[in-house]
């Protein structure tokens, strides 16, 4: 442990670098996960101005699909990972087509209630299919080296699993940015987010773009779910609820509608949570997200990067 001579000795154990760095790593790990879920929320809100309450459930389904593929079909981990992501993308699209599209022009209240209703429906559906007890992730499916420590420096442990999560998160974030900025689908998404009517007039098939957005959001959410399930080794049907709210808080923090904002918001929230749980009270760790959300909404509704979206429909 590097000694900082200008810090008084008794503080070393509590405020020592090793502890801080380890908590930081914990925070970045969970922050990356929140970021991946948060971009899903923010993209969907961007295109249809709906808080997709059921997004957390897609995250949960991702984890469960992966476990089912591994245990029932005997697929190797990486195959199950991508297959599960694909399934989540499909689920997202179905969610849109079945539940949200018919209400495209309805008042907000109706769509919000539908979203909550779908969230509850999916949670309980998962309970019926997989049981309500927490399930472990099948250990043997994970690559052997995940458990091993990859890097140690000054009392900080980084296992290969950590590196895997960081890696996937960063790759997906970069990939998403590329899709949004460089591909025509990305351009179409941005157009629909700005103004649906004008985008339609410009010849964009708005419905299809929205479905595409749901697919992307679903895939990312599913990936996040698998990683969480595998890393913390616990899957249960209501895991999407809390993670979903926190990721939404992250999206709000970053500015709802802004993808880079959601990414940053996720990381910031994750780190704040880990540091808060580690240094202050772990019992209020969930409260940190809620408090951040409320404060941000009241004081700076635009978040870090976003613009306050004008109320285009009636408030009801």
């Amino acid at each position, binding site marked *: 442990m590097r000694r900082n001579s200008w810090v008084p000795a008794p503080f070393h154990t509590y405020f*020592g670098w090793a502890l801080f760095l380890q908590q930081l790593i914990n925070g970045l790990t969970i922050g990356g996960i929140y970021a991946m879920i948060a971009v899903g929320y923010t993209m969907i809100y961007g295109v249809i101005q709906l808080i997709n309450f059921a997004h957390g459930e897609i995250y949960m389904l991702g984890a469960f699909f992966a476990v089912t593929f591994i245990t029932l079909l005997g697929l190797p981990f990486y195959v199950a990972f991508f297959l599960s992501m694909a399934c989540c993308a499909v689920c997202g699209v179905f969610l849109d087509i079945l539940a949200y599209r018919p209400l495209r022009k309805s008042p907000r209240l109706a769509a919000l209630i539908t979203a909550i209703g779908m969230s509850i429906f999916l949670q309980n559906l998962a309970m019926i299919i997989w049981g309500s007890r927490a399930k472990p992730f099948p*250990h043997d499916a994970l690559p052997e080296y995940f458990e091993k420590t990859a890097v140690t420096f000054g009392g900080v442990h980084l296992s290969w699993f950590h590196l895997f999560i960081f890696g996937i998160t960063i790759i997906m974030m970069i990939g998403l940015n590329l899709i949004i900025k460089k591909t025509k689908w990305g351009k179409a998404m941005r157009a629909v987010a700005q103004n649906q009517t004008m985008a339609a007039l410009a010849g964009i098939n708005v419905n299809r773009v929205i479905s595409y957005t749901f697919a992307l959001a679903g895939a990312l959410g599913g990936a996040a779910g698998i990683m969480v399930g595998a890393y913390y080794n*616990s899957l249960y049907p209501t895991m999407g609820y809390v993670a979903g709210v926190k990721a939404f808080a992250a999206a709000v923090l970053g500015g709802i509608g802004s993808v880079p904002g959601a990414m940053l918001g996720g990381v910031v929230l994750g780190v704040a949570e880990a540091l808060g749980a580690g240094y202050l009270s*772990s*019992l209020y760790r969930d409260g940190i997200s809620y408090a951040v959300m409320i404060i941000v909404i009241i004081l700076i509704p635009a978040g870090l990067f976003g613009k306050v979206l004008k109320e285009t429909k009636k408030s009801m």
Partner: protein
Amino acid sequence: MKNRKSFLFLGLILAVALVFGVTTGATAGTIRIGVASPFTGDLASYGDNVKAGVNLKLKEINDAGGINGQKVEIVWGDDLCAPKEAGTVGSKFAADKTIVAVIGHLCSSATLAAMPIYVRAGLPTLSPTSTNPTIGDVGKGWFFRNCYTDDFQGKYLASNVVPKLLGKKKVAIFYENNDYAIGLKNSFVAGAKEGGITVTGAEAYVAKTTDFTPQLTKLLVNKPETIFLCGYHPEGALIAGQSRKLGFKGPLFGADGIDNIDYIKIGGKAANNTYCTVPFLAASAGPAGKKFAARFKKAFGRDVDWMSANAYDCMGILAQVIAKTGPDRKKIRDGLAAINSPAKGYKGITGLTYFDKKGNCSKPAFVKMVKNGKFVPAVKAK
């Protein structure tokens, strides 16, 4: 339109009444006993254990002709190990006059929530697993249990298990924020001085937490030699796994809440080198206990655990008392209270059971450990 809706509403009320009437009806001539435990939800595996033990004894009793010629029927109440559900189950049992006694509840917080209802209704309750010491006071003479209390268990861990069996001195505690764990932690800390143990840190968590890494990181700073998993097995298993990921290599230990096959299933390799205290250990039990363990394995295909054993004995105790007093709530309570000395004690597979004025009993504790993915009697750590 309005009339249709009001008929719908009336119809629903009638349907509800009918359903309740139907489901609370009893078969005449049976003795009905309520059993309350979590049968669904995260702690359902505990409930499965209680069910197994009760069912095994039930079969024995009914095959032998029942109690004084009357067959015994069980009414299962799912309390989800939650105080609110426990209250609902308790009201149901109390309102059903054909239920003469209750075996339960499983979780201390559930028992604490239901006890006032049972006291008001005069329904004797015998718990196989609730270990919180305060239940004896709340029970006002209607509560009995055939397991030890956490007063005893915590001190036993602190003065015996950790210093002598594990040979460690510095302990970090992870406890759940509920009646059971807080009581257990307090008695452990109280006994720590006697055993020469230092508690290097304590972290609380709420049920269903899955990410313990920030708190573990904090606890590991003070370099504990062992971690006390003061809670139930789902979280215990996760703490075990995550602590290994953070590089902790020492032994882990817990109390009766950890003793469950799911701990090993969820924890995987990380569950190895975990010790826990239990009220019953087949390997250390007398000949009756060993016979029971064999029968259990044959009937359910898995090793017996302490909850099944205690539930089996609860059923046995009730059967013995009801045979003497008949199916009457007050008489059964008096009959249970009369088992108040070793001479009058019930000789079951878990040893000799007799109750003091608060319904508590004293039982010895045993220690088991996880080795190579299996529960085995504990050996001294090297």
